């Protein structure tokens, strides 16, 4: 018997059936409990992050939430599309369709930028080859 098999065998032998049968053994019951902080150390007053360029919020909010992610701020054509999407209520289909379109545009932007980088290296590479050939000839 391998270690993994032994581990599984031992595991299945544990008395698990009905261990949480009593409702007070279930952390999610009631699903919505009386209001109290989620953890004892949860901050009473939430400091707001300072605004960042290229970070949006949905139309329904008057301002940013106190805390937010700052990854990949909006840029380029995909940024324009995403900004337009977030200025449309999320209950509208066009909100989601614009986000999907922006995703595809974003990938295209990345691929074009990558291609441009490669193309920019071509003259440098050609010059290096010509120079090397010339030096070898001399």
């Amino acid at each position, binding site marked *: 018997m391998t270690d993994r098999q032994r581990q599984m065998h031992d595991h299945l032998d544990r008395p698990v059936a009905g261990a949480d049968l009593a409702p007070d053994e279930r952390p*999610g019951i009631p699903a919505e409990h009386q209001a109290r902080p989620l953890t004892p150390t949860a901050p009473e007053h*939430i*400091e707001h992050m300072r605004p960042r360029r290229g970070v949006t919020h949905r139309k329904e909010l008057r301002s940013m*939430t106190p805390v937010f992610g*700052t990854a990949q701020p909006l840029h380029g054509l995909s940024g324009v599309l995403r900004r337009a999407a977030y200025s449309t209520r999320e209950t509208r289909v066009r909100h989601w369709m614009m986000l999907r379109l922006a995703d595809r545009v974003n990938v295209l932007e*990345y691929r074009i930028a990558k291609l441009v980088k490669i193309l920019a290296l071509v003259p440098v590479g050609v010059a290096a080859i010509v120079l090397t050939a010339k030096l070898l000839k001399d």
Partner: protein
Amino acid sequence: MRALSYFGPNKVKVVRKPDPRIEHSNDVILEVTRSGICGSDLHLLHGLVPDTRVGCTFGHEFTGTVVEAGHSVKNLRRGDRVVVPFNISCGTCFYCSRGLSANCENTNPNSDVASGVFGYSHITGGYEGGQAQYVRVPFADVGPMKIPDDMEEEEVLFLSDILPTGYQAAEMGEIKGGETVVVFGCGPVGLFAMKSAWLLGAARVLAVDHVDYRLEFARRYAGVETVNFKKVGDVVAYLKDQFEGRGPDVVIDAVGMEAEGSKLHRVLGMSFMQAGVPVAINWAIQTVRKAGNVSIIGVYGPPWNLVDIGTAMNKGLTLRMNQCNVRRYMPHLLKHIREGRIDAKAIITHRFPLEKAPKAYSLFSDKKDGCVKCVLTPAA
């Protein structure tokens, strides 16, 4: 730092990115020690989640060591080892204070449908994920739980998501003792839902999938009966027959938006005519007995799906669903792990260094090499 990044559907690479920094007084920066690849990360990989931006780092199941803490953090200090819930929650808003931390209203400026989530597109707040060497963790005094000194990271890693998610799925099924339960999906969440169904007192648990090695794993790991839906013809009729023609009392959908089983729904779902493939929900609604409970924990996105709501209404079903409120389950499930009732670590089939993350994604997505769960080891 090195981090996994998204560059378009089915294209992820490990690249160099700037280190995260403290951006709010209650943030901490973690050096990531273990990071799981979740089934829901595959929806991102496949380009199915709106506003997934090029450069986004995935990863919402991780453990780490605190390397820096904001000035208002009371609960953690440098060197503490923690496991972090995938939800980013303030702990005191209307929803958090009622235990619904998955619905926190202070951490996601981009959508009303969920709280902030690590590494899960900008519709869950635009936070970087934990499939990286370092990650910024907001509300450090709310979400992260210290790992007991006598426990290893891998023993508790899945408290971050899939174990509480599976448990909540079973709990939402309202099992009171003696019920029959069908679980659609033998992925990691499905496996933990099966385990949890036993804990809550189910009398019979039957798992449905179409991948033979996963069905075998479910039989061994969770001690359940299994059905390969591709081998039984009409799966709904087959399942009803297993339960005296009525169907089971409870059905759990642990599949989500990339289900197999209907060519029509696959075409509509993968071409964005609907938000993913709702086959598992429809089978759940059709299979469960009248007045039974359907628990939906598989991930679906807005704006719409072709769901068989008429059948649900006429059968008098109770449909319950939510993203998991992870934080409230962590202490309870830690106790189950410590006391040996749940061996969460046993579902790990593959471990990879961060540099091999794209290979891990490919293996997990293609269900190759008996893969059930991949874990990355960024600090190795």
